[in-house]
Every structure is written in C-alpha cells, then in structure tokens.
C-alpha cells in the first residue's frame, strides 16, 4: 500500500509540476516554422500552426489543472452549504426546496448541457470552470446531504442543542467535521471526473481559444498531423492521462490509509 501512495504521487507529480512550474521556464515563443515539422531545433517538433511543441507543453498544463481545480472547488463551495443546510434544517419544505431541484438537474446529460451552454456564449477559461462546476453541483450536493443527514441524526447534535450551542458550531463544528472525511473521498474522485470533463470540453473546442496553449486543445488540434509528427498529440495526451490516473491512485491510497487507522 505504501508503494501505491508513492506511485500515485510520482505519476501525478510530473504533470502537476509541468503544469504549475512550466510557464516560468517557457520563455518567449521561437520563430514560427511550417506546421508539423520534426527536428530543426524543436525538441518535440512544431504543432499545427508551426509553434514549438515543447514550448506549448510547458504553457499548456496550467489552464487544464487550474480550471479543473477551480471547477471542483466551486462545485463544493455551492454544494457544501446547500447540502448542510438541507440536512440540518428541521423544516422539511426547506429541505425539499433545496434538494429536489438539484435532483432534477441530475437528469440532464452533462455533455449536452456543456455544448448548449458553451455555444450560447463562448466562455473563456473562467466560463468553462463555471460550467463544469455547474454540472457537478447536483451530484456533490446529494453526497454532502446524505453524509450530513446521517451525522445530524446522531444524539450528539441534540446534546449540543440542549447546551444551547450556536447554529454555527453545531452545523460547521460538529456536522461539518464529520462530513469532511466522506467529502475527501468524493473530492478525489470528483477531481478526476472534472479533469475528464474539462479535457473533453476543450477537445470539443468549447471554452478555450481554438489555438490556446492547452493540453486538451493540443490533442485535438494536432491530431491532423499524427502520422507526420506524433509528439504534438502523444505528449499532451500522456500528461492528461497521467494527471487523472495519478490523482486516482493517490486518492485510493489516502482512502485506504484513512480506513485502516
């Protein structure tokens, strides 16, 4: 189990380091060469518009990782309060009001939602993060609500109320803390799900500039030259897969350890 943690950390470490530190070393773009050429001073060749692929790889990680992180955090920023409030309130109509509409959203296929919303306004990175977060909120809220409802039904909450404890310490102090562990597990899986959605959305040309330095966009736009210059597709694709797979491995290892102690 120890080695799984190390393996996961390593696999996710490489793309993460590239994504966050890359832009510092990118420097200015070299002269533009004909598209899809190999060699000629370009370590990984040139991409579909003749830019140096290695320079793109260095720049391309940041948007994917940041959008994914932002989307996950945004999803929880909304889901946590809604889920907690839904579970803690004794007014059933309030709980129904909070939770039912979210269940309705579960029925909308997420990719269709992204395509439709994205073509209404062509969102930039921020728009894409908002969009992917929106798609994740219903499910995240449902999980928070389930975990919080269980914690809220415990006698400890009633004991706190008997003590006249403030709403804040009961809801966040006790219920929030006990929900934290389930959320950590869900956050891990959700992050990989969000990464998949961000990559697919970027691949479909949604939410990112068509020629943006973004790994998923690189995979899409450079596929035309795969026979001539495979690195422009293979390297970013491998980095995205490593990011999701490493993330998963890490989450599994952490979960395993938490369950053991």
């Amino acid at each position, binding site marked *: 189990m120890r080695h799984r943690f190390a393996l996961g950390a390593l696999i996710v470490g490489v793309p993460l380091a590239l994504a966050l530190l890359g832009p510092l070393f990118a420097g200015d773009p070299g002269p*533009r060469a*004909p*598209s*899809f050429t190999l060699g000629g001073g370009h370590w990984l060749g040139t991409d*579909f*518009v*003749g830019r140096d692929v290695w320079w793109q790889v260095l720049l391309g990680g940041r948007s994917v990782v940041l959008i994914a992180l932002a989307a996950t955090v945004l999803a929880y920023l909304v889901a946590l309060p809604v889920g907690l409030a839904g579970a803690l309130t004794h007014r059933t109509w309030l709980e129904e009001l909070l939770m039912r509409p979210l269940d309705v959203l579960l029925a909308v296929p997420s990719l269709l939602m992204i395509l439709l919303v994205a*073509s209404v306004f*062509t969102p930039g990175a921020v728009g894409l993060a908002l969009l992917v977060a929106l798609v994740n909120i219903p499910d995240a809220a449902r999980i928070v609500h389930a975990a919080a409802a269980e914690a809220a039904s415990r006698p400890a909450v009633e004991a706190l109320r008997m003590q006249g404890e403030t709403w804040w310490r009961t809801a966040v102090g006790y219920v929030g803390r006990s929900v934290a562990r389930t959320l950590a597990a869900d956050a891990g899986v959700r992050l990989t799900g969000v990464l998949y959605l961000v990559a697919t959305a970027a*691949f*479909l*040309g*949604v939410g990112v*500039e*068509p*020629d943006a330095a973004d790994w998923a966009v690189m995979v*899409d736009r450079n*596929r*035309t*030259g*795969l*026979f*001539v210059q*495979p690195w422009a*597709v*293979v390297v970013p*694709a491998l980095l995205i897969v490593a990011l999701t797979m490493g993330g998963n491995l890490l989450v599994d290892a952490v979960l395993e350890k938490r369950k053991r102690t």
Partner: protein
Amino acid sequence: MNDVPMNDAPVNDAPVNDPRFPGLRRRGFLAVAGGAAGLGALALTGCAGSSTAGTSGKADGKPKRGGRLRAAFAGGGASETLDPHLSNLFADVARAKALFDKLADYGPDLSAQPRLASKWEPNAGLDRWKVTLREATFHNGKPVTAQDVLYSYRRITDPKKAYRAKASLEPIDLRASRAVDQRTVEFVLKRPTAEFPNLLAAFGAYIVPEGAQDFDEKPVGSGPFRFVSFAPGKSAVCKRNEDYWDGAPYLDELEFVVANEESARINALLGGQVEYAHELNPTTARAHEDQGQVQIVRLRNSAMQSFAMKTDRKPFDDKRVREAFFLIADRKELVDGALSGAGEIGNDLFGKGYEYYADSLPQREQDIDRAKALLKQAGAADLKVTLDTSPVAAGFTEAAAIFRDQAAKAGVTVRIKTGSKDSYWKDILDSGTLCSYRSGAMPIEAHISQRLLTGSTTNATKWQHKDFDDLYQQAQSTKDKQQRAAVYERMQRRLYAEGGFLVWGFADWILATARNVRGVEAKAPANSLDWARFDKVWLA
C-alpha cells in the same frame, strides 16, 4: 427588393464555406483529422508502403466498365433531401450531379461550358438569349423539352420557397421567356447581361421533368445515373443510365455514404470500406501522400482565404491603412502555417486562375517599413484592432493567430475575438472592422456582383462606390469578350490598390481515392463541372 439594377450574375457561392457544411462547421467538434490519430500510430509512420505510379486522374490504361464505387461525403444528417433545387451541401451537389443535369456548368477556369444546352446566342442588346437544347432524355424515356426547362426555372424562382438558385436567376423575366419550339427556349432578361451563360451554370439550377414535386421517393432526372435507393443522412445508391447523352458511365453502381468526421472518411478509405473520400485536411494529405495506400488528389485554387476590412468605418476608411495591412501580411507564412502548405499565395484579388483574372498585376510582398510609414502618415501609428474569427472554416483561427504576430512587427496590436460557429457569417456581415473571410470557387463576375456592388446582398467589406457599379454595368453590356476583359482588368486594378479584401491565399481542395480508381479529374476546383463527377470514373 432594392431597385438598383442588380445585374446579378449567378449567385453561386461554393457550399465549401457554407457553415452548415457539417464537416467544416463542426471544425471544433471532433474534427478528427489526419487519419487515424492515436498512440499506436508511431509504428505506422515507420512503414513505407510501396508507392504506386503517379497521382490518380491520369486515365492510364483503357477504361474498364463495371464495378461499384462508394464515395464518402460529409452530409446534412437526417434532414437531407434529393430535391436538386434544395441542394446546399457538397453531398447534395454530388448526388444532384449524378441524377440531374444543368443547362451549363463551370469549366476548370470557371467559364460556362455547354451541357444540356448545346448552344446559346444573345441578341444585339444582350437582353434576349436563344438557347438550343441537346437531344437528351429523362430516365423515364421522356425527352428533355423547353417546357421542362421553363418549369424548372419557374419552380426555382417561386417567391414562397427559398430555393438556392433563386437569387442567381433573378435577372431572367420568366413570364416573358417562352419556348420557341420543342428544343429551343428564348430567355427575356430584365437588363443586358453579357455573362448570361453563368446564370445557366448557377449552383442548384438543375433541370427536372415538368410537374415533378417529390424527389425523395423516385426522383427522375436526365443525369448519368438512375435512382435506386435513398436513406437520408446514411446512404444514396444509383446505377448506370445506359442512354446518357454524354456517354454511359463506366461504373455499374455508385453509392454516396455519409461520414461527417474527416477521420472517419480517411479511415474508411484506408480500411477499404469506400473508394473515394471527399474533403480531407491538408495534413492528412501530407501524411498519406507517399504511403502508397491511397491516392491524394489536390484540386488547386478551390477556395479564397482572406481578411475582410470594413472600408466604411475607422480605421479602414483610410485607404493608406488598408494598403499598410496589405503590406503587413507575409502570405507564404500564412499559407504554410494555416493551410499547412496546401495552397498558393494570393495577391489581394479574388479568382486566381479563373477567367478574366488580372494576373498582370505584380505579386505583393511583405514590406513592414513601408507599412509603418503609411500608418504614421494616416495618423494610426500604434493602432489597436479587433480581428473577428471562428472555427467555422478550416484555417481561420490558425491564420488569425499568425497574422496577429505579423501585425505586431508593424506596431499594430491585433486582439482576436472567436465568434460562434453557427452565426458567424451573419455576425461579420455588418459588425466589426476586420474579420476572417473565405469564399468558394465562382466566376469573378459573380464575386463582384455579390459582394462589391452598392446593392450586393453580402457586401462584407462595405465597398459601395457609384463609379465601380457603373464599370460593372458597362462590362455587362459589352458584347465583345476582349473589351469586357479590359473593363474587368480596370475594376481589379482598383480593388488591388484600395480594396477591402486582403486575399492572402488560395487553398487546395483535397480528396483521396483508392489505388484502383481512375478518371478522377485533378484540374477541377471544388464546385466546377469535373469536381465530384463520377460518370468518367472507372475501376482498374
């Protein structure tokens, strides 16, 4: 309808840049081009297939009858129809061309070639044309008569409908036109139109039997192939029409299959599921050119690539700024980067290689210093401009990015704004100052009438000059070809000097065929007669 005499040559915009064309329109969506991408492809680039002799198109060896050819096109999905007058996309045109005929069609240089019409001669005033029909019969054996022609043209110009060729046939006064005899039609025009034959070759002006309304069940036409079956969005099958007037086709059967993804088309060709894959990406072509599995066919000068400047508003109302932009563009770098080298550089004029093209004008080169000087004169030293673009057409976004870097060298900062794919053309018609623009193959006269006259329907550069309109009218009423050419030359000289179109390149149209396919014409820009023409094709 504006009353300005709009001597409108056939409105024929090549469907190639029609955003509804799924292959192009969904440039962003899964445009899985470049053959089967994927990690395993590394090994592929290694293997050098045996490359067979030459490119297709040359009819080497004697044509053999027989066989069935499957052609993969990008289609319109379930709303496709066989009604020739409704054809909008490449797949529609290819199917219509197989089942029906037009009176005339465009040759390699976009000049009108006689088809169902054997000959045509105008009267002195160029406003009455007598067209004689060739001996031809429909699939049901009925001969093609003048009545059929008039019925077809009247159906197309039905005010209630929105058929594609309606605007092109506008100059004809169909009530006054009449059938002189069984095979002669006298067309009465509203105004002198020297380029009337271009009208007969207009996109979508097919001849259908009189009274024909429904074309999806059992369409009857006069084309080289007869109807067998049709499943919208999936496939259309037709078989050889033995008594076709232009000689019976070699193929026994022809099937059009729909594959909206470019990678699916090339994969199907590589996997032997189809013998003809239409519209491929330049990089795919380069990747498979010498692999020996398929034959790549490049149709030169098929599509004009340019930037359109609004000449009626700042900063492009000053012609010095326009000339400066002409000089900023490095056309070679744009063609190499955006079209991956598949095309030729442009000279800020439409219609390279077409009839009446002013190839005498010197080819412009990039001259940053002169551009800076011009900008300073015009008081626009550190100019900021927004360039509208969209993934609606191949090469747009790439070219925009490259032009932005080139403009930076001349001190001009260009901000790129990416618009929605589906309403791009309508948006850039009136708003913005600078945008990416492209156009399919059409006669130069049609380009001018459609985009550069005061009354033009799609005047993206807002080029509205009275004297320019008069020159166009003069050309339309000049009977003699040389004098007409001279007038066109003067118009193009004016555009070359101060026009709104910065034409940087002409893209090739690329398709691929299986190794055993012969007779596919290479010198046929998309939209012309020999493009997607299967009655001269045979299987070795």
